[in-house]
């Protein structure tokens, strides 16, 4: 399969920014160019946000593919509310999308609102600390780094997956078109949503993914139609929504992938107790901080608040959602991506070698060698990715 994310070698200057921002140490600089190690990546998008040379290329779909389907449905991400000045703007965005060739444009607040009660019901069953699965990066982090917390993940699909299933059925009935002739496109606000859909496109309810940043550039803010939105769901564009709408004290909200990592660690060693649900988002501010938002997350949060004030309570969603739509397939552990070797004794040997190499390194984590820390560099030497001469600050070196 073609890579979904690539690096423009002519743009990359090997500055180490992306590498240092990566929470999984999945990036190295080799021959002055960034290189991604896919098996470690959790698609948080920090690298893309940090890159000041625009060297990351994301391969989204082509609008030409829309002609393959009889009816095209565009799903707007919940973070879209962080870009709107008022309710008319939403109509403007719909108009723009229809110019691109979409027949129907829907947004996600109804799905988010629907899931609130499902989730609150589910976590009543026992006293585990559950982890919200709205953000695929968080799910990835659990499968790769905290496999022992897999039972703590809620068994629910992310909202865009649910929307894909629900609206495919809805529009198929409405227009009397077979389900497979409807093309569902998701306009993604972040890298993780984009990649989870594309990677498993055969099992996803979404057929194509476009990037929000590519679309909003050409928005005409002309009002054409009313778009139905459910107030309770719009809160989910930003962090802390769950706590707010459910008025529940034992929900912990955390944003930013490194903070999420710390919180998961605390849950793992049971340092955090009495928390029933962890509302975790990889991006700063929640979905409004997405990789392809092109708006400061705090400004976007403010816009969401402004937008919510314009809406009335209790707007009804009115489309049936079945348990099959929201229950997810079991997530499998990816234990082992962080280990030095499959063989325990071999791993200990390597660890010893790493420690020996480290004693000769400056331990200032300057990153000039192209590894994110001195320790990571020592690991890379043991793995054979680098040689000790690559360290420019080495004691006794040149």
């Amino acid at each position, binding site marked *: 399969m073609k890579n979904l994310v690539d690096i423009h070698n002519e743009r990359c200057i090997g500055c180490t920014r992306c590498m240092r921002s990566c929470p999984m140490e999945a990036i190295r600089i080799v021959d002055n160019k960034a290189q991604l190690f896919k098996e470690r990546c959790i698609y948080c998008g920090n690298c893309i946000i940090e890159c000041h040379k625009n060297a990351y290329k994301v391969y989204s779909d082509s609008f030409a593919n829309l002609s393959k389907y009889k009816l095209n449905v565009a799903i707007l991400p919940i973070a879209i509310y962080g870009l709107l000045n008022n309710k008319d703007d939403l109509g403007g965005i719909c108009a723009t999308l229809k110019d691109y060739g979409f027949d129907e444009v829907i947004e996600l607040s109804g799905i988010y609102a629907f899931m609130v009660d499902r989730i609150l019901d589910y976590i009543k069953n026992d006293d585990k600390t559950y982890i919200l699965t709205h953000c695929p990066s968080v799910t990835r982090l659990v499968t790769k*780094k905290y496999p022992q917390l897999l039972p703590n993940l809620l068994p629910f699909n992310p909202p865009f997956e649910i929307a894909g299933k629900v609206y495919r059925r809805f529009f198929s009935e409405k227009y009397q078109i077979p389900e497979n002739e409807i093309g569902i496109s998701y306009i993604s606000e972040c890298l993780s949503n984009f990649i989870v859909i594309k990677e498993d496109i055969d099992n996803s309810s979404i057929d194509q993914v476009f990037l929000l940043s590519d679309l909003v550039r050409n928005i005409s803010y002309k009002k054409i139609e009313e778009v139905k939105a459910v107030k309770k769901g719009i809160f989910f564009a930003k962090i802390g929504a769950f706590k707010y709408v459910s008025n529940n004290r034992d929900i912990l909200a955390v944003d930013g992938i490194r903070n999420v990592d710390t919180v998961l660690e605390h849950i793992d*060693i*049971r340092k955090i107790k009495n928390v029933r649900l962890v509302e975790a988002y990889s991006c700063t501010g929640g979905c409004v901080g997405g990789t392809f938002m092109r708006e400061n997350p705090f400004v976007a949060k403010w816009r969401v608040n402004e937008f919510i004030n314009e809406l009335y309570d209790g707007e009804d969603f009115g489309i049936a959602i079945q348990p099959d739509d929201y229950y997810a397939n079991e997530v499998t552990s990816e234990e082992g991506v962080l*280990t030095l070797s*499959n063989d*325990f004794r071999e791993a*200990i040997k390597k*660890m*010893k070698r790493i*420690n020996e190499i480290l004693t000769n390194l400056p331990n200032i984590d300057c990153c000039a060698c192209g590894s994110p820390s001195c320790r990571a560099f020592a690991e890379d030497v043991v793995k054979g990715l680098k040689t000790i001469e690559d360290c420019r600050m080495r004691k006794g070196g040149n």
Partner: protein
Amino acid sequence: MTVSFEFAVYHEDYHNAGVASSEIKKYLTQIGLDPQLIRRIVICSYEAEMNVVIHSYGGKMVLLIDDNEIRLEIADKGPGIPNIELAMQEGYSTAPLSARERGFGAGMGLPNMKKNADVFEIASSPQGTVVKLAWVII
């Protein structure tokens, strides 16, 4: 083949409390230990680290990994535990207000360590306390 790691822990350094345990977790994950065993070890190292931060004049933690077992040795520079039997009781705490204000000092540290380690040894004098923990790798 034995690998060892040493971590310094300072008195009342709440800001960095838990950092050593995070690192321990990282290294144990890298050698491919069972996640459930890692959890037990890290629970102990965290409790031990906090104990040193709260109660002692500072000390160090040593992690030793070999083919058959994981050992964790925590040694501080005093002032020692006057009554170990009492300290081993759940809920018994001598933590100062400064620790309790931060949500620590519930009196579960030593009992938790004993519960989660395969081998638990403790010795204390006014010159310092030494806790030795070990886990067998099956």
